[in-house]
């Protein structure tokens, strides 16, 4: 939550990682670094489902994020809901912290009388509208995901529409795994626009292995790189402390 910016990793997978470290461990580390990990599980019916389900839930739980399992035709709606809900959770947490500093620990928003609670939620709503957001999207390209990729592309375009309707700034990056030569491949570096997605997934070849853990690791490193690049430039150019966001 440094500099009034929300950082999220959004993982789209059908679960069942089979290479590298435990993705849940990487997610737990991400959480410690202030990056929330949300997972949308696009699962098929069948025996692999249970295992996939477990993995999806445990990654999001460790990463302090939201998880949701969907059929592929509900993907667009879900991706946007998960992202926004996770944002609200983060902001709620921030406001909650501020509150307990003012009111003493143990005091929660829910303990307030309904009138006061309404004012707090107004603040959360306002922040959700104006806060800047970085989302790194991580798409599982293992063979079983292949038929779902057109829908994934639709869902990401939809996400971009939703987030651009806010007042706050958004930046997206897109990674896929496994990549052509490496475990993880960068498809799109930080950009405010996701319109450039068209055709990206058609060119991709899907692979057999699913290195979810290493992919999350790469995503984390990419966030770090962005931070250090930033600090080399002028410090905090388009970033501002959340306390000053105008209300």
């Amino acid at each position, binding site marked *: 939550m440094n500099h009034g910016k929300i950082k999220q990793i959004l993982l789209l997978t059908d679960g069942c990682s089979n290479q590298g470290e435990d993705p849940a461990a990487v997610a737990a580390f991400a959480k410690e670094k202030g990056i929330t990990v949300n997972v949308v599980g696009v699962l098929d019916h069948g025996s692999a489902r249970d295992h996939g389900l477990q993995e999806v839930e445990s990654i999001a739980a460790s990463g302090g994020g*939201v998880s949701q399992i969907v059929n592929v035709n509900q993907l667009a*709606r879900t991706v946007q809901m998960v992202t926004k809900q996770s944002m609200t959770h983060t902001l709620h947490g921030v406001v909650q912290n501020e509150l307990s500093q003012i009111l003493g620990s143990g005091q929660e928003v829910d303990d307030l009388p309904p*009138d006061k*609670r*309404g004012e707090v*939620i107004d603040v959360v*709503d306002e922040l959700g509208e104006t806060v800047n957001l970085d989302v790194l999207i991580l798409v599982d390209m293992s063979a079983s995901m292949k038929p779902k990729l057109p829908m994934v592309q*639709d869902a990401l375009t939809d996400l971009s529409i*939703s987030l651009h*309707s806010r007042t706050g700034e958004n930046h997206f990056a897109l990674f896929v795994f496994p990549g052509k030569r490496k475990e993880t491949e960068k498809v799109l570096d930080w950009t405010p626009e996701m319109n450039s997605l068209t055709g990206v997934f058609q060119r991709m070849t899907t692979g057999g292995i699913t290195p979810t853990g290493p992919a999350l690791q790469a995503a984390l490193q990419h966030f770090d790189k962005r931070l250090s690049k930033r600090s080399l430039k002028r410090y905090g150019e388009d970033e501002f402390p959340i306390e000053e966001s105008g209300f």
Partner: protein
Amino acid sequence: MEKMNSQSKNQAFDLVPGTAWTGKWNQNPYKIIKTLGKGANGVVYLAHTRTGQKAVKIGEDKMSLTSEVNVLRAFSKVQGNVLGPSLLDVDDLIWKGEVYPFFCMEYLEGETLLDFAKKRGTEWIPVFMVQLLGDLDRLHQEGWIFGDLKPDNLIITGPPSRVRWFDVGGTTKQGRAVKEYTEFYDRGYWGLGDRKAEPSYDLFAAAMILIETAYPRRFDKPVGASSEKTLSLLRRYIQHSPPLAAYQNVLLRALKGEYPNAQLMKKDLIQTIEKKTSRKPPRNQQRTGNPRKSTQGRRGSAGSSKEKASYRPEIILTTSFLFLSSVLYFMGQWM
């Protein structure tokens, strides 16, 4: 924002008829009569209260319910409180050690748009659309956008039959991102605009509602379709349905976001309805080719200067006088 239940620990929260409680803060007693429905943010029950039968919405999620209360509260500050169901009480319910927020509002009894049209005839639908557009216009002028506009959130009360909305969970301040939406009615889904809360967002949804009345099973957007493709698909659906085809121009303009406010769409819709009804009897006055003429005559009743040698102006004047006085009478009753 739309809520998901996957995370909510209280997913199966259900109160049986007869359940009674007293609010934590305001000490008002409630007793459940029956479940009315399930909204995005909670369950709505019909309940006995101190002031009679009211609707009570109990939230599964504290945050989004509070958001909705904020909207209703803002509405209640608007003169006459015509925008939504009136808010009567906001409190917490303690049930088995857990705290659930709830609010109590006016109970709107009625039928869904489609049920009503099935029973009473489809000629009602354009009338309700006109009413709806008038309400939307007022809502927009207060700085709000309805957001999740769909038949599920509308109810026909009466008699006299009137369309009202009751779930304001998606209502968003103008200029922000729409809080809640349903894909079929969402211009973002169709690739025909963003999700910024502005009047044209609601007008798109209104057009989709009208389209849905002719295609109750709805239809989907093809995956990866461009905005031109979806627009031509929607156009085809409109043209293939005789009742919709008459409204083609209004619908397409709304879908393309060409109406900056609800008032303009309402005006066009009224004109279309008038044209449609005046076409039925074969009295084609194609002298001037000016379709507005008749409407102007009807509207400008107060200062109609060019009186022709016919009884028409008199009849119109008398009807509008009767109409006006009945409006005044009803307003008097209302106050």
